[in-house]
């Protein structure tokens, strides 16, 4: 599965490092042949155009979930959109600095995503497709534009509009994306109705993550039985993962559900704490990792969520408390500042965590703030931050104690001789 190949993604992390991409079993199967339409069609043939009911049924058969992080069942979303002739929005903007899978997918295999978007648009009876791309990766936009020109030349009659998402954490949130499409600031607002009912300019909208559309295109092509060629009976299919996305050797790969975590992470990483699901994710202790598989159910049983497939093993010699405090500092700075509990609560949480790092307490204040920000914002930014912090407190109480005693040996100033 991990044949190292000379494929470059336009994705890069906040210090400009380009993730290594490995060929994958389904979505990333043809990336060595380049991102062009000709090789894509040679390999796979024309994209099928199933009716909405058939597409909903296939998505239900394989229990396809949205890949933006929330994991909402796609069949429900699609059925709701199909009843209302919704327009299509493909969200390819990852606000999270540690996630590169959508940017990698869009640049290495743009037609895999666009086939899915075209299939959904056809099923919904619309020609209107919006694609949201990250403004900090201009080369990604160029690749998508080229791919769209190729498709137009080949006779595809979709009206596609590109939109540049702002480079901040909450820009990819659904309501923030709808604001961007409407020409307003790319920040979250309160959602009174689901997008399928009232989305882009109040019209019914099917908004999903780029990877979700890629899976849908693949599903439309191979059917539910073909889709189940990878994965387990319980969880068919594959998922994209970003490994060490904010580190010095980021990597994007595609694995089948049920793949042991030990096949994805190195031996050394399996002995380290793992932040699973990204900056809004959940910490797991090293003892929880052995025997764990890349599986929504397994991971849920361990008290975590796969989120958007971001895996951040803690670097050796680091302390999970110090790492969490640094992440919360960052997340507090990424608050849009619109909702009072988030604008006030996240900086207070960062401050309380500094107290925990330096004095080991009081942990009660951190817990209190987690409760005060949860479900009290237009988007899930405060909730995700509280989840990260609460999981750190739950999994590493010994680490917090060691800070109270001043015995934590993590993040020491190293002397390199």
């Amino acid at each position, binding site marked *: 599965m991990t044949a190292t190949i000379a494929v470059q993604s336009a994705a890069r992390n906040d210090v400009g490092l380009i993730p290594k991409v490995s060929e994958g079993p389904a979505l990333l199967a043809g990336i060595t042949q380049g991102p062009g339409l000709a090789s894509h069609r040679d390999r796979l043939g024309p994209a099928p155009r199933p009716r909405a009911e058939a597409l909903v049924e296939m998505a239900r058969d394989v229990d396809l979930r949205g890949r933006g992080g929330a994991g909402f069942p796609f069949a429900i979303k699609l059925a709701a959109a199909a009843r209302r002739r919704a327009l299509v929005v493909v969200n390819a903007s990852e606000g999270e600095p540690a996630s590169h899978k959508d940017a990698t997918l869009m640049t290495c295999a743009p037609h895999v995503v666009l086939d899915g978007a075209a299939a959904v648009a056809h099923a919904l009876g619309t020609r209107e497709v919006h694609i949201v791309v990250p403004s900090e990766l201009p080369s990604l936009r160029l690749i998508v534009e080229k791919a769209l020109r190729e498709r137009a030349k080949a006779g595809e009659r979709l009206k596609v509009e590109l939109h540049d998402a702002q480079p901040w954490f909450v820009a990819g949130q659904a309501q923030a994306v709808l604001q961007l499409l409407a020409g307003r600031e790319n920040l979250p607002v*309160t959602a009174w109705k689901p997008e399928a009912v009232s989305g882009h300019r109040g019209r019914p909208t099917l908004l999903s993550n780029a990877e979700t559309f890629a899976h849908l295109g693949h599903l439309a092509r191979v059917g539910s039985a073909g889709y189940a060629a990878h994965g387990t009976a319980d969880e068919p299919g594959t998922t994209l993962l970003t490994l060490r996305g904010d580190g010095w050797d980021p990597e994007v790969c595609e694995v089948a559900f049920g793949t042991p975590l030990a096949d994805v992470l190195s031996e050394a990483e399996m002995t380290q704490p793992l932040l699973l699901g990204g900056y809004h994710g959940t910490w797991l202790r090293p003892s929880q990792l052995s025997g764990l598989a890349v599986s929504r159910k397994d991971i849920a049983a361990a008290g975590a969520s796969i989120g958007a497939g971001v895996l951040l093993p803690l670097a050796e010699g680091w302390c999970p408390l110090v790492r969490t405090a640094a992440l919360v500092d960052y997340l507090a700075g990424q608050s849009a500042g619109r909702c009072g*509990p988030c604008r006030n609560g996240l900086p207070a949480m960062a401050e309380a965590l500094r107290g925990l790092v330096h004095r080991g307490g009081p942990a009660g204040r951190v817990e209190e703030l987690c409760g005060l920000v949860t479900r009290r914002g237009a988007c899930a930014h405060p909730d995700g931050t509280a989840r990260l912090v609460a999981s750190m407190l739950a999994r590493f109480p010994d680490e917090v104690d060691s800070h109270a005693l001043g015995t934590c040996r993590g993040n020491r100033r190293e002397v390199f001789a």
Partner: protein
Amino acid sequence: MSEHLLRVDWPACKAHGVCAELLPEVISLDEWGYPIVHEPVNSDVLALAKTAVKACPTLALRLTQPPPRPA
């Protein structure tokens, strides 16, 4: 149908605190002055809740029906 939920439009709320004055049965204020909605609105306080919704200076409070359970 008897129970209603109070929802806050968080970006609109500017922590005037009028809602907690009018409806202390259901709403208290956090340390920054933003409302904490403790429970659904029952019929006893429905009229007060409607007053609170109307009195909010930034129209940031709404009374909604609980969402129907997805089939």
